[in-house]
């Protein structure tokens, strides 16, 4: 009996191939295309426009890495993944990079054989309220009625937040997110709560978006970032520094339109970023103009943000936590030197 079990165990172990993919950077360069896992449609993060072209802040993450590695932002194969299959697709090697608004949590970082390479969007749970309530802060929401989707983390966070602030709320509970929004639309409640990035999309779906507003308070931490396989440090570095390069470019004022002129800049930080001095690119295993290609072809972080979710997009999301560190936000790129 024991022998059979043992044999079975050995058989199973042999059937599961090693999940490590030794050199993703090399693979991507050989294939000359980056397989990038995106969502099946999240407004502003990854979605297809009417021409079928993928756009969004996560898509720009893919494009940045492709520019850095292959010198061409268009050499990306987008693989749309549902929330359930995203991590498997990365583990199995179907994709090289996952940029699908995934929250960086301890469990995911430590137990899935994956590494989060950074944060490209600090999200968090917020409130969408109807303006006729006449409040401007979540602290004034005592006694308000909420449309809530039953059994979600948002519901738990909401309860915690109200309890810790000594306030109460009335709940109208729904089964699906669609029904929840519909309830809010029809005026069954004063407010809905969800990740802030989603609330701006919901706002646009209202019959008159001007009758509602997103409150400034954020009550939970949802850092979203690109994910790579654990155990491939080279590739991890490439993705992490592609993100840093876009942030650094914003900090130094390098944009897609002035990148070419900036090549002649005498500022040592800019020179190191754009690769006219130093060997950052070489150390990453890339060409010296890797960061120049990112900024030139995709743009710096503020360009990515404004175009996809910020002031130049219909979503018009406030930068909030996603401002640079020296402007009151959390975005902080490690220095390139």
């Amino acid at each position, binding site marked *: 009996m024991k022998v059979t079990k043992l044999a079975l165990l050995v058989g199973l172990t042999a059937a599961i191939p090693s999940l490590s993919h030794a050199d993703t950077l090399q693979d991507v360069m050989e294939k000359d295309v980056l397989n990038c896992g995106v969502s*099946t*449609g999240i*407004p*502003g993060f990854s979605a*297809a*426009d*009417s021409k079928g072209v993928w756009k969004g802040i996560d898509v720009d993450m893919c494009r940045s890495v492709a520019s850095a590695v292959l010198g061409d932002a268009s050499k990306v194969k987008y693989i749309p993944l549902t929330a359930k299959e995203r991590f498997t697709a990365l583990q199995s090697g179907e994709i090289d990079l996952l940029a699908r608004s995934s929250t960086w949590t301890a469990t995911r970082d430590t137990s899935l054989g994956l590494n989060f390479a950074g944060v490209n969007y600090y999200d968090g749970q917020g409130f969408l309220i109807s303006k006729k309530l006449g409040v401007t802060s979540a602290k004034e929401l005592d006694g308000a009625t909420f449309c809530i989707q039953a059994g979600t983390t948002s519901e738990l966070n909401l309860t915690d937040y109200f309890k810790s602030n000594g306030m109460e709320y009335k709940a109208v509970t729904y089964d699906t997110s669609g029904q929840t929004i519909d309830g809010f639309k029809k005026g069954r409640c004063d407010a809905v709560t969800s990740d802030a990035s989603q609330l701006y999309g919901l706002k646009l779906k209202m019959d008159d978006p001007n009758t509602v507003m997103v409150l400034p308070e954020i009550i939970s931490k949802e850092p979203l970032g690109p994910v790579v396989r654990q155990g491939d440090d080279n590739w991890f570095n490439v993705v992490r520094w592609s993100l840093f390069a876009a942030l650094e470019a914003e900090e130094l004022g390098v944009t897609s339109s002035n990148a070419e002129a900036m090549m002649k800049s005498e500022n040592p930080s800019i020179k190191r970023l754009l690769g006219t001095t130093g060997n950052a690119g070489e150390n990453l295993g890339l060409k010296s103009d890797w960061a120049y290609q990112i900024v030139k072809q995709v743009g710096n972080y503020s360009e990515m943000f404004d175009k996809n979710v910020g002031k130049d997009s*219909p979503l018009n999301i406030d930068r909030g936590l996603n401002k640079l560190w020296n402007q009151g936000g959390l975005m902080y790129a490690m220095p390139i030197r």
Partner: protein
Amino acid sequence: MATYTMKEAKPAPSGSKGIIFWLKTNLFSDVRNSLLSLVGLYLIYLTIPPLLNWMIFDATWSGTQDEVVNSGARWIFIIEKFDQFIYGFYPEHLHWRPNLVAMLCVAFLIALKVLKNNKSKIVLMLLFPFVCFILISGGWFGLETVETEKWGGLMLTILVAAVGIIASFPIGIVLALGRQSDMPILRTLCIGFIEFVRGVPLITILFMASVVLPLFFHDGIEFDKLLRALIGITLFQAAYIAEVVRGGLQAIPKGQYEASEALGLSYWQGMILIILPQALKISIPNLVGSFISLFKDTTLVLIIGLFDILAMVTLTNSDTNWLGYEVEGYVFVTLIYWVCCFTMSQYSKSIERKFNTEH
């Protein structure tokens, strides 16, 4: 000798024909019926005019989003995204290829009706899927290759359903025959397969195919996601077809089996020439029922990230420039599904009539 003279046909007694008569007998025959009819009419009055207003009279058919003033449906969304609903991400300059395949399909169905020669029919049936596949995927005869990731929309829905139906049919028949076989191992295997597959939901099989299978492949071996899903759907459908066909087989009187043996026909000859034609004929309504339900089930592929027409609605609704058009999208998809399913059931009726040998 009395001669028979034709009498003039008299009009029907007044009050026994015409609209008023029909209303009287069918809707207002007694007090209870009258009440029910009135309630029914009121419900129609409540629903139909607003629906028509929304769908047609108050709808917006052209212009840009900023110009929308009417309160009805904004069909401009459907018009803007129409290509994506139909072809998914299939490159625009190659749309003629799926179009050509669609026309070939119609031609194929007509040819099957017109052709009398069975051999040419079989050749046509074997050849047709390959022609379609080469046209859609390309890579042969100088046609540009289109990866399966780019297939989507209604094209993908029909493709998945068609492959599921066509490939599962022979497998299902073999399974049904195997289940009735005298050979114990074969029978056990077939029963085991059928009962196992019928015991799990399609969604489970799709998840297995998309999430679990890749973990078992070695590095570098990439198995197309669509192909994995197609195999899963085919096996799933085959188990159901097997049971439908088994129902047909069991309905054939034992005398038919014995007669085929008495004629000295081998097992396969007896099955192909005598039993199956009768069994399949009586199974047609159930087969079509199961095909229609498969057609609707194909939309489950959206949970493994394939963009069938319904997933395309969700995706197009996440375009930041076109938020909030779910209702229009879903109504459009409902219409498409209805047209497809209704066509299938009508086609099955015509086949039933064709094979009707009863007198």
